[in-house]
């Protein structure tokens, strides 16, 4: 498969694909971060995670239409407002869902899978009823379009760069929140043992609600970012869900660093393979490798070593 290319070409292929992989990496990280909190930390198997992302995307769409219609002058910055709003809206819905649904299921983690699957059906239908079954287009501000040429073959898409910066900053923020803040300490205590956390003075209900809300909010931000590169339709969320879970599990469910490492290795593998194989085969091989590695290391790439 290398024979078709000259050495110079191969070099730039690896550079370009590496970069494409970085964008894919950022996409994976964005998808997975919210789930790393909700599933990795709280243990809730949130099958509606994709729908929370799409909710963020629809919010972005609405905001873009609003700016286009009423504030065209400020259109260049609408995206930041959209992102903040996506966080708030998805987070608020997350909190409502936690309050009505999830909090009754902490003792039955597998049941969260079924309940959130039902939720995802309802959300999809809601999107369809409100926004119509067709995909909606989000106009990207001019400054985010186009690319910066590095060499004559390697160009860096600006929106890709933006997604990357976004992914990195959110990861950093979540890391600090979960592992360097008092709040993160409480979250982890609640997750470890809800009754006991309550008995050492932690308001577990509030912590749960906030945690779930933040996880959903991050999903919303991811959805906002995806409007730049992906499609927004009622069922688009489903496309992401398996990949997202796999990224989190492959990293080691409890580990944020693991999530990032896993997103990185999966994206790079897929990106490089895609160049030499068909898109389908690249995906199959990547998934197979992930499954294979998980069989050898069932606890994921980065797992806590705890005695049983």
């Amino acid at each position, binding site marked *: 498969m290398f024979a078709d290319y000259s050495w110079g*070409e191969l070099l*730039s*292929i690896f550079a*370009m*694909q590496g*970069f*494409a992989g970085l*964008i*894919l990496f950022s*996409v994976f990280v964005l998808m997975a971060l919210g789930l790393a909190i909700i599933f990795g930390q709280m243990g809730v198997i949130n099958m509606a995670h994709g729908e929370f992302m799409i909710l963020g995307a629809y919010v972005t769409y609405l905001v873009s239409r609003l700016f286009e219609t009423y504030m065209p002058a400020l259109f260049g910055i609408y995206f930041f407002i959209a992102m903040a709003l996506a966080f708030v809206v998805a987070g608020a819905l997350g909190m409502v869902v936690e309050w009505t649904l999830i909090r009754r299921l902490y003792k039955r983690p597998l049941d969260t899978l079924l309940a959130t699957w039902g939720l995802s059906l309802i959300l*999809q*239908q809601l999107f*369809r009823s409100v926004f*119509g*079954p*067709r*995909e*909606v*287009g*989000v*106009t*990207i501000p001019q400054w985010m*379009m*186009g*690319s910066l*040429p590095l060499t004559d*073959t390697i*160009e860096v*898409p*600006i*929106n*890709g760069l933006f997604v990357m910066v976004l992914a990195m900053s959110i990861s950093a923020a979540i890391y600090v929140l979960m592992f360097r803040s008092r709040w993160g300490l409480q979250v982890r205590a609640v997750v470890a043992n809800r009754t006991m956390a309550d008995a050492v003075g932690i308001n577990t209900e509030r912590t749960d609600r906030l945690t779930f809300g933040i996880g959903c909010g991050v999903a919303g931000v991811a959805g906002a970012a995806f409007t*730049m*590169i*992906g*499609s*927004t*339709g*009622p*069922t*688009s969320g*489903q*496309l992401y869900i398996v990949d997202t879970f796999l990224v989190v599990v492959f990293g080691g469910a409890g580990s944020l660093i693991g999530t990032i490492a896993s997103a990185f290795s999966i994206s790079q593998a*897929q*990106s490089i393979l*895609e*160049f030499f194989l*068909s*898109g*389908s085969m*690249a*995906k199959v091989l990547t998934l197979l490798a992930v499954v294979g590695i998980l069989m050898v290391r069932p606890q994921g790439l980065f797992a806590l070593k705890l005695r049983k």
Partner: protein
Amino acid sequence: ALSASLFLPKGLRAQDFPTAAVNTTGLAVTDTEVTVGILHSVTGTMSISETGSVQAEKLAIEQINKMGGVLGRQIKFVQEDGASDWPTFAEKARKLLVDNKVASVMGCWTSASRKAVLPVFEQYNGMLYYPTFYEGLEQSPNVIYTGQEATQQIIAGLDWVTKTKGAKSFYLLGSDYIWPRTSNKIARKHIEKLGLEVVGEEYYPLGHTQFNSVINKIKLKKPDVIYAIVVGGSNVAFYKQLKAAGIDMTKEKPLLLTISVTEDEILGIGGENIDGAYACMKYFQSLDNPNNVDFVKAFKEMYGNDIVIGDVTQAAYLGPWLWKAAVEKAGSFDIDKIKEASPGIELPTAPEGYVKVHENHHLWSKTRVGHAQADGQYKVVFETSDLVEPDPFPEGYQ
């Protein structure tokens, strides 16, 4: 509508066609009504594409009813949801034929759904009006294909880019299923026949959203034409990423030619992201002829000003009209008579212009090339002078 039918000229009134005579096989036909089925996905991934078809079919039915219906009978429809799931399509098709005894069905979008319902229509002797451009290699007496088969859509477009744009090398890509693969196979054969070069061919799973790799390959191979048959939501990702990667389609090279992006898809992609691409199909909303002006007006009156109309939507609109014409020609709702009557039917009022049903149950139609504009519409830059003959089993392209 009923009172109107009293004043209809003889030959269009229900009483001129006693039910016992026009319906010898127990279809859902009464003295005043005839029931047809609408079978599309209104949920699941395909609802994005199929919504337009449902709208068009309902519009046609309403217009026909206003004109007095079919053989004086008002058309009633039963709508079923295929839910983007092929077995569900088959189940609902059986339900429509067996339970509802519908006189015809307007339905399906993907080839997979058509393949799933085909045996059902043949077994229960139903009539399906299928609106989508598709891969060909099929010819069922129980189906009228109102969209184009692959050679009709492809060959004229390729001839046009090679002649007027001087294209020499092509990069083929598409979603991974039968229509894009078959279409690209035909395209490749034709390109090679013309003595030109295919420099790459790629397929991605339905729903794929990461096209950076193929874009990199395209940059490396520098083809004159990117020939793209990406379908559904993947389109959005593909064109946004293409644009972000600095491939400017408004420039002469590489030029992008697609057969899968209608105005409907542009709605999701965003006009600014596909500005400058060329599409090759039989219908564009911007077609300037009186039929189409009326059609677009009626469509917008019914569904609002923001609505757009794509190739498949128009083809779906033809379904009820072609069926009506066949029934009237046969003077009967019986399926066997309609099958027999269908070839040769002409529809001068089609928005795309005059069309005619071929012996092989496909339509003769013109093929056009549209140039995508930033406002989400296509400007027609080429149209075949004659109707293109449908050829579902093309010699030399298999």
